[in-house]
């Protein structure tokens, strides 16, 4: 289809793709999309969180983990693109689970999404609060505490989402551009072509914990990309455009890989790995070390903007996932209500606020991030199982696929292997959190299977016009 801009809608010229008509790559990967991939969704991972990988295995281990996680996400992009382009029902992995595995899996995938986004929101609020406390202290306000700002951040963004008062395009472009440009400015401000400011030779110390440290670092290596699979957004009534999906995600990953490598390069050249590995705001700290007020203010603004933007997206996505579970009666239908005036899932938004507050106020940043990563990791573990079942139940040729990923089942096996290694990595540093999270999901699954499932409208779960799966 040729995308024709139009000022009127409803007519033939409206910009909408209908029923599998081709959409050009240019349309899919427009400037806004590329910005979004790099900035709006996961760039916050450059401003905080990634550096815990340095603490696990040193600077070199963090870089290896970053690139290995890139391989994991390549598999995610390939697998997710095939299933998303075939399951036309909107709803991402949640809808895929409903159609391919079953309600219990869909319930868990919904929970993974809610927990991953809510924990990320809490992590963003912690970072914003810490940053304000730090800058307040530098400005002479020694008594500034981070907790009120954490609460304020979560409540204010939840209120905005409740009201559905969305920021405007200019505002968005300005704040995301500032966040993105701040990394570029920092990079060139530190003169990476000379040893004047950066001291890699003195500060990079190999692998302090050996190869075990590299495996341990893989846990936080995922942080660079967490959520990028969300870019496979479907349009209403349209099969997601085939090959553009993996290409779009891969382009985003390359953007992030470059940004991540730049971030890593400037930070490890400025700070000893022992400090960097536990910093809350590594880029802002890097700017402080330059003694440049301009860079410091710029990185302060960039960090604040990226965390707020990310937290806003998290509240949006978590509440929609919870809302969908309410609509499907996986959770009480009460959560499936829409505000009569603002048309937002207001009950879901309000319900998730105290959960975000409990984690933001009660747990340190690395643990909150670990909870988020674990939920994301569980979602990635679902993908290989999902695609193997998908190919077995509906082999190639039995239904129309928008995209067929190559080398099946190799990507699924590699993804499963990398997920298994990452679980081990989490176990090495955060065994208690790993066990707690698993117990939570097992108890929740038991509650669903033995209690909640009787309320689910089983006939409504499968909406795709596919033939009966093989073997049924």
């Amino acid at each position: 289809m040729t995308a024709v801009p139009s000022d009127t809608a409803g007519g033939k010229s409206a910009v909408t793709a209908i029923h599998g008509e081709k959409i050009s790559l240019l349309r899919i990967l427009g400037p806004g999309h590329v910005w979004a991939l790099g900035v709006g969704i996961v760039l916050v991972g450059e401003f905080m969180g990634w550096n815990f990988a340095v603490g696990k295995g040193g600077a070199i281990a963090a870089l290896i983990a970053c690139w290995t996680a890139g391989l994991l996400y390549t598999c995610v992009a390939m697998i997710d693109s095939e299933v998303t382009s075939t399951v036309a029902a909107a709803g991402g992995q949640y809808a895929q689970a409903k159609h391919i595995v079953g309600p219990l899996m869909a319930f868990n995938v919904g929970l993974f999404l809610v927990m991953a986004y809510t924990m990320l929101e809490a992590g963003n609020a912690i970072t914003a609060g810490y940053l304000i406390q730090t800058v307040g202290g530098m400005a002479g306000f020694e008594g500034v505490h981070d907790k009120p700002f954490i609460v304020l951040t979560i409540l204010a963004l939840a209120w905005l989402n409740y009201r559905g008062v969305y920021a405007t395009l200019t505002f968005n472009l300005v704040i995301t551009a500032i966040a993105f440009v701040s990394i570029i400015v920092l990079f060139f401000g530190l003169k990476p072509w000379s040893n004047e400011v950066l001291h890699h030779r003195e500060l990079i110390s190999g692998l302090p914990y050996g190869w075990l440290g590299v495996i341990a670092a893989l846990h936080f290596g995922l942080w660079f990309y967490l959520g990028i699979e969300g870019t496979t957004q479907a349009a209403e009534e349209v099969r997601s455009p085939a090959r553009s999906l993996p290409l779009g995600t891969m382009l985003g990953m390359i953007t992030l890989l470059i940004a991540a490598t730049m971030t890593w390069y400037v930070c490890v050249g400025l700070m000893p790995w022992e400090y960097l590995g536990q910093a809350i705001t590594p880029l802002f700290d890097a700017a402080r070390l330059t003694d440049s007020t301009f860079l410091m203010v710029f990185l302060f603004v960039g960090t604040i903007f990226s965390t707020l933007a990310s937290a806003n997206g998290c509240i949006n996505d978590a509440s929609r996932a919870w809302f969908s579970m309410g609509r499907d009666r996986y959770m009480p239908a009460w959560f499936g209500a829409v505000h009569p005036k603002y048309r937002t899932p207001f009950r879901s938004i309000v319900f998730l606020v105290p959960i975000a507050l409990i984690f933001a106020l009660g747990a340190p940043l690395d643990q909150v991030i670990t909870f988020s990563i674990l939920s994301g990791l569980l979602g990635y573990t679902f993908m290989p199982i999902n695609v193997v079942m998908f190919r077995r139940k509906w082999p190639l040729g039995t239904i129309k696929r928008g995209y067929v990923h190559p080398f099946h089942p190799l990507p699924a096996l590699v993804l499963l292997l990398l997920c298994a290694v990452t679980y081990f990595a989490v176990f090495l540093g955060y065994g208690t959190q790993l066990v707690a999270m698993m117990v939570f999901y097992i108890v929740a699954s038991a509650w669903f299977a033995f209690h909640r499932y009787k309320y689910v409208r089983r006939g409504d779960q499968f909406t795709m016009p596919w033939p009966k799966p093989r073997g049924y």
Partner: protein
Amino acid sequence: MSLILGCALTGAGLALVAGVAHLEQRRIRSRRRKLLDACRPLFEEARLEHGGDGFPRLYGRIGGSRVTIELIPDMMTIRRLPQLWMSVTLLEPVPVESGLAVLVRPSGAEFFSLTQHFHATLRVPNGFPEASLVRGQSPGATKVLATVAPAVATLLADPKVKEVAVTPNGVRAIRQVAEGRRGDYLLLRQSAFDVVSVDPGAMLELVDSLFSLRAALVPGKSAKPTPDRPSVPPRERRP
């Protein structure tokens, strides 16, 4: 001193950005409020109202029959771009014992759909899109479905039509008006639509289809609004 200057500049910058955001917010709300202005002259006794989000609702009569148009922004489904729906309702009683609704490509999150209130799932007739959900108020809706199936199938041939519903109070169709810009949604979950005015021709086409649907249920009723209805430029029909 330089830190204080930096903080002052940051504050000024933030205030500037906030000011720009406020002005643009007002401009967007004002633009939303005008979305149905071009449709208004086609109505008799027209009355325009606006929701809390600024999107308009238009009440009035076409061809002597009560018609309501509502614009519904929808960004409830995860991993999907925001949608702007136009709901057109012909509020004239029809002699059916049971209501029914046909929803195309259901995701479960269609808060605006009547299917959520009906509990009898009916068999999808031939000629409907494969991914349809047909629900009736009672199993008796099967008879109603048999009567309206050809007219509903004609409506659903337009792939932008999301739902068609028949109840004793009237008939309704929901059609896609616009889809949110991908970049804006991915950036910060914004629902920005490239539309400044709903096409009156598309609206009247939907009203015509609803009159045809009603005519299938009420023999003797015209399948078109009164012939003296305001004319709009002819539009090419979708294949």
